[in-house]
């Protein structure tokens, strides 16, 4: 194929058309969300206006109308005195049928459903999970603070001149902290809930869980310090930690895997729910990937590049994506209170994901010096990914079918839906990017950065938020304020769109400029406004993380409040306790 790329003809390229169409999905979805929200606010506003009109009318009532109203009021005020048919004896409610109902209060923000109390989780397991998620929240805030700083550096490169904070050193600190710190630890924490739950048994060992938690945290902590000090593995993305540090993380995963497998093997249900398939496989595969990529005695020359392509993409697809899909197969049906649409589709997606995803690693090095056949296989595998992606998305969306109304009354489901939509868009976009023409246009530009945020953020992070907002109130019995959760959602979603769309647009122009062989520097000045937009979108995303951290704090903090006994049971209970204390005290004194 002879390609003459000009700005007028790129819109006839399959890859471009595909990408534009796909991008429309989240944009249209968030527009619909917004319109719906605006419509509800408008109705509220119009209602208030009407009330004012009515009030005016009331003020203008004539004397005879008032008298008539007062007359009618007296008539309506007539009440039986409730002794007509009975007696004056005290009422006895022996079965506790009569209870006080609370009057609904007026609210400006629509009240969403509260979490429903679930069977209690053992306190020790609950604490372990909260420690995992708490660590994840910390690394999210840390990692994205670094990311935010890096984004600003594109517009202000002389912000600081300290080696520890220079761009090249901080960039991997950001990516690794959000990968291994935020997403991985959140996933592990959630898995420690899901696996025992679907196995209907207790976690095999809490202690091993804490060991894994400690090792993973230690890895990300020491890794970040080492990177800032200039100690790294030689530049492959997400492989910047040197192997002794990554080994800590690997051992953490190995311990967790062993712990969860032991839990599964003592399950009290016969079948293995599909979540188990995804989660356990993801952990096994991560260990394989890390072992292959980090074994310290090989990969000379281009061997390094071939393994790098394999490693970075399997890390994304076989660890983060597979794991999160497993969690989704548990949490989504559970939130919608209906079974997953099709178990078989989940199984199909599982096997086809393994088959195709494993092949696509080298699509990061198309047109490079690695063997041509390997590049072609990677492109074929990228196209094959359509199967698991469509199977997964269809399955989730059809599970929503008939339960869409729940979306508006839930504060967790919007996170799920955005995650699912981006799963479709982001993954399909990956396919489009692997075509040889789109690769010419976008490779080496910030389009890749936009894509990785659409996926790691739009898919993985949104899903994890949905799961965390679902699970944590169950463990602690406390929910965050719905207003701050809503703010978190909107800041994150709008921030992501503002971050990615200008960046993709600018990168396309930049790629065209390169194809036309314009001086490189022109393509740098071209990007300046798009880099600024990226920083603005990034700021919104970062604010949403602060809100998320606050919400998490609200969900786990121990509330010190004075509880006034109100029910008869409580009053009597307390009286008994007080009396008991008093007698004890007397005995002690005597």
């Amino acid at each position: 194929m002879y390609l003459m790329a000009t700005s007028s003809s790129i819109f006839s390229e399959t890859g471009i058309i595909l990408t534009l169409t796909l991008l429309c999905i989240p944009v249209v979805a968030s527009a619909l969300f917004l319109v719906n929200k605006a419509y509800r606010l408008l109705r509220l506003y119009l209602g208030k206006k009407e009330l004012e009109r009515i009030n005016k009318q009331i003020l203008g009532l004539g004397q005879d109308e008032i008298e008539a109203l007062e007359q009618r009021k007296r008539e309506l005020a007539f009440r039986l005195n409730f002794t007509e048919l009975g007696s004056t004896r005290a009422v006895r409610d022996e079965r506790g049928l009569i209870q006080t109902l609370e009057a609904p209060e007026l609210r400006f923000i629509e009240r969403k459903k509260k979490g429903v109390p679930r069977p209690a989780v053992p306190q020790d397991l609950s604490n372990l999970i909260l420690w995992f998620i708490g660590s994840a929240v910390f690394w999210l805030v840390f990692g994205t603070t670094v990311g935010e700083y890096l984004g600003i550096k594109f517009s202000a490169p002389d912000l600081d001149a300290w080696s520890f904070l220079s761009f090249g050193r901080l960039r991997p600190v950001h990516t690794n902290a959000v990968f291994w710190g935020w997403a991985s630890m959140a996933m592990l924490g959630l898995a420690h809930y899901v696996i025992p739950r679907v196995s209907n048994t207790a976690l095999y060992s809490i202690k091993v869980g804490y060991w894994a938690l400690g090792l993973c945290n230690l890895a990300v902590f020491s890794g970040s310090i080492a990177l800032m000090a200039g100690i790294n593995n030689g530049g492959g993305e997400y492989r910047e930690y040197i192997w002794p540090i990554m080994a800590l993380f690997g051992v953490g995963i190995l311990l967790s895997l062993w712990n969860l497998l032991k839990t599964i093997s003592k399950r009290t249900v016969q079948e293995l729910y599909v979540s188990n398939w995804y989660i356990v496989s993801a952990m096994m595969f991560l260990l394989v990937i890390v072992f292959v990529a980090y074994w310290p005695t090989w990969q000379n020359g281009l061997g390094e590049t071939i393994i790098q392509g394999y490693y970075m993409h399997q890390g994304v697809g076989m660890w983060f994506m597979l794991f999160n899909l497993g969690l989704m197969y548990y949490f989504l049906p559970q939130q919608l209170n209906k079974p997953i649409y099709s178990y078989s589709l989940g199984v199909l997606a599982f096997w086809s994901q393994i088959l195709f995803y494993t092949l696509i690693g080298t699509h990061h090095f198309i047109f490079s010096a690695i063997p041509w056949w390997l590049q072609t296989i990677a492109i074929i595998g990228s196209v094959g990914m359509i199967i698991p992606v469509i199977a997964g998305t269809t399955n989730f969306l059809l599970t929503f079918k008939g339960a869409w109304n729940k979306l508006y009354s839930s504060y967790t489901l919007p996170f799920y839906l955005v995650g699912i939509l981006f799963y479709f868009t982001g993954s399909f976009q990956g396919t489009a990017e692997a075509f040889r023409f789109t690769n010419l246009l976008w490779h080496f530009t910030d389009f890749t950065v936009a894509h990785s945020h659409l996926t790691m953020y739009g898919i993985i992070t949104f899903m994890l938020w949905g799961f965390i907002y679902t699970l944590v109130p169950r463990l602690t019995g406390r929910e965050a304020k719905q207003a701050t959760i809503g703010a978190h959602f909107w800041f994150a979603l709008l921030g992501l769109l503002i971050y990615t769309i200008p960046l993709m647009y600018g990168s396309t122009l930049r790629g065209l400029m390169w194809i036309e062989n314009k001086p490189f520097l022109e393509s740098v000045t071209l990007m300046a406004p798009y880099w600024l937009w990226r920083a603005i979108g990034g700021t919104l995303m970062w604010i949403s993380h602060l809100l998320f951290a606050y919400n998490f704090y609200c969900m786990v903090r121990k509330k010190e409040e004075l509880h006034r006994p109100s029910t008869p049971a409580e009053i009597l209970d307390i009286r008994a306790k007080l009396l008991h204390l008093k007698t004890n005290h007397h005995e002690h004194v005597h």
Partner: protein
Amino acid sequence: MNMFTNHRILFGTSFALFAFLTLVVAIMPAITNQKNNAPLPGTADLTADQLAGKQVFIANGCVACHTQQVRNVAMDKAWGERPGIAADYARITRTDFWRNTATLMGTERTGPDLSNVGIRQGSLAWNLVHLYQPRAVVSESIMPAYPWLFELKDQVAAGEIEVSIPSKFNPTNKKIVAKKEALQLVSYLQSLKQTELPEAPSFLYAEEEQEAKPGYSIQLPDGQQLYAKNCAPCHQTNGEGLPGAFPPLKGSSVVLGDDLELFVNIIMLGYDARPEYAVMNAVGLNNKLSAAEVTAIINHERNSWGNRAKPVDAEQVKNMMDFIKKTKTP
């Protein structure tokens, strides 16, 4: 079915499938590649200084923005004479037991590709200024500054290299001296050169070359773009150069004068006649500029920034360059 109820069979199968695919698409190709791979003749391992410079490059994460791969597509011609091949990376082995091989191919071109930067931009003076403060030489650059590779001193000792920077970027009045690490890094950058191949693979998607038809004068390319690419890093887009480092072309007697031979010689072979300025590399020869391109650059310089002089003739330039090539071909 057993697979749905026996976790050993299920997880065993998925593990086996993944491990098998890993073997086929990753491990085996990687091993084949590292075994059947010999470095190109005429190349040498990095010297100790260059290797130390590469460590500085790695430690500071330069690969985050700079690739080192010339793809076999025409748009990458800007970065090298020929597409990169596996043998180009054959000398790169594991850094040490603790750290992996650093082919530094990269995935982002926020800044230029560096495969051939030793030829394109080999000047020591320029590289030092650029590392200390990129915006001193390229005002639009967003590259970080690396001041920790330099030290501020009152006196420059013998054997030390001072970096001359416009006072705007050095308010302290002290002398800026390159540390060992800066010199090593530059020597690594200078070592990045593509090895010439007798039969190099060609670029894909190339546009057909426009051959000059006999009887017509040579079609001149865009002088401004060529100037931006080859000359502006040192002499600046405004032609004013940098005091103490790179001479101005605005109002320059060489640019405006009639000694065309001297002018072509400087462009092609470099210049080191004026002690107040840094040495100029053989920009034209290194970047293989054609007669038409050199003519376009000369005419651009003679008629920009207030310069007014008669355009020169491409045929004349061609004759001079043929002479230079005959005498200077290595």
